[in-house]
């Protein structure tokens, strides 16, 4: 599996920061996921070889964390918080709206591969509920109308 030029150097630098090599695993998985799109078995195996761990060990770690995608995801990933405050203030309504609008269920990707919907736990933005995170950016007080505007933006990208 080939990584972009410069990625390897960045990973080496990451590893050098820690007293023990293995500590760099999660930051490395973030980097590799960002580049490859998701953590494919090849990607996991590559990381395992790079750090001298067994592939089962690396997959065991990667599969523990919500942010690591072990299946391909769309170009844009929308996390919708489903926790208490957001639900009290309309998250489920937003979710139903999204599912209807994009014609997929939570956890799935649109057929054109553009958008993946994921339920998330508390995003630490309860003061501005309902909150979502799109491609790493938070959006607050998301009504169905504001959501539609966001979706239009994403489609245009």
């Amino acid at each position, binding site marked *: 599996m080939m990584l972009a030029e410069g990625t390897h150097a960045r990973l080496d630098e990451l590893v050098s920061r820690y007293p023990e090599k293995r500590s760099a695993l999660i930051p490395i998985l973030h980097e590799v996921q960002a580049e490859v799109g998701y953590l494919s078995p090849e990607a996991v*195996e590559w990381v395992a070889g790079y750090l001298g*761990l*067994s*592939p*089962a*060990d690396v997959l*065991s770690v990667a*599969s*523990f964390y919500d942010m690591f995608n072990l299946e391909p995801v769309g170009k844009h990933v929308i996390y919708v918080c489903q926790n208490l405050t957001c639900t009290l203030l309309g998250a489920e309504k937003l979710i139903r709206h999204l599912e209807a609008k994009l014609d997929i269920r939570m956890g799935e990707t649109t057929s054109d591969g553009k958008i993946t919907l994921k339920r998330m736990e508390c995003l630490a933005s309860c003061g501005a509920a309902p909150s979502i995170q799109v491609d790493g950016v938070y959006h607050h007080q998301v009504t169905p109308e504001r959501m539609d505007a966001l979706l239009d933006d994403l489609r245009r990208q």
Partner: protein
Amino acid sequence: MPTLKINGVEVVTSRATTILEAARSAGIEIPHYCYHPGLSIVGQCRMCQVEVEKMPKLATACNTPAADGMVVVTNSPRVEKARRAVLEFYLLNHPLDCPVCDRGGECPLQDYTLKYGPGESRSVEEKVHRMKHRVLGPHIVFDAERCILCTRCVRFCQEIPKTGELGVFARGDQSEINLFPGRDLDNAYSGNVVDLCPVGALTSREYRFQSRPWDLVRPTQSVCPLCSRGCNVVLDVRHRQTGEELLRIRPRENQAVNRWWMCDEGRFTFAYLHDPHRLRSALAREGESQTEMGLDDVLARVAADVGRIVQEHGQGSIGCIASSRHTNEELFLVRRFFRDILRTPHLDHRVRPVQGPEGDTSEDALLRRTDKTANSRGARDLAILPDRDGMDTPGMIAAAREGRLKALFVFEEELVRELPDLPVREALGRLDLLVVSSMFPNDTTVLAHAVLPALGFAEKAGSFTNFQGRIQKIHRALTPPGACCSLADVLRELARRLGWDLGDIEPERVWATIGEQPGPYQGIGWTEWKAIGPEGLLPPGA
């Protein structure tokens, strides 16, 4: 040396240890799953919780150090409720597979549930369904629904063979143990996970659906014959209508030899004992072919031939190549017959380079050794070696080829296959008398004038000496099939026909004589031999 009280019983420990280990040493059971003395401690199953005076919460016995003056209770109502609850939690998703699960009848989940668990289920929820009977590798089958996530198998693969094939994936009640996609569980010790698994999540392909534990007759202690380590084992035999069958070999704990483990080769290689192609009767050469013949008749012929050859050509015209697969007792009788009775100096057991003292080394970082026979050390200790003026194995082959050796006894070695660089066929073909014992017909037996059907290790009693010099006993688990009989019986009969008395041939009687003679086993007489327990005996100076 902490002294503590467990359920009112004073327990003195000899070293720093945990409550669980202290209890074990005193024969007090504290139920547990994830703990195993050979693996790292994780303290996650929560079964071993006990009450400790002055500790507000229940403590896990597996990772709580036993302290002097500690007062522990394992059977209070509080502990019983906690334990019952843990079992209830386990049973929420555990499938009702008992009728079709190998573990049934020897299952710690069944046993603890019966003893400590709830009688009825309170759950009406759908159980989590997972993959079932998934083949993980050449020997192991996995059922994820039965798995209780004790992680012993994962830790075993990481810590013992250090191959790390297994991992726990996802988290919470979605956790599942599995392989990395595309990989196999194929390390040389994979079978140990079946022993470790407290439930029937990990089973062996060889033993699946073969038996229920109550159909296995008394477990027989023995020693694996497939390398010089001599892992201690237990043989499980089932009586069927068609006869007895060895169904399973499991390791026995012996910290000095194999700890708790054994390799897959030793564990799963035993079908040969029941192979229909095994020699079950003696054979005698008639012209160009060999025919089955009664053992007595064959031995009568052999004795007659031996007598004639000794008379015509002298004692030095006979040789014997015995095997390091034999027991100490068989080897001792071999030496007695050939050196003391027939008085030939030509005796050896060495056929492979690994059989020398420097030849046998570790094959891996764990248990396996390069000498694939059980008793090279015993053969050396009992001097199954040529006299000063005797010939060794290559010498005997050369002498046979040149016509100087007239008779050769080959006990359980396939010389044609083992010595490709020597003119074995030609040599053996020139002999007046070639007697071969073997379990199976092979390129060497077909050249023989007399073929004697040999016993497998599970069919005889005696002892092997492992590479450490440790004398370890084997016991009979199977009745010898057909006319197969021990070398001891063969040699006694031959001696008798030649007018000699070989003496007592029962294993313990043989040691009475071994112990009297100078050598590494001097002083190990009948009493001492009888006293050797499951852990074996390392003679002083070994």
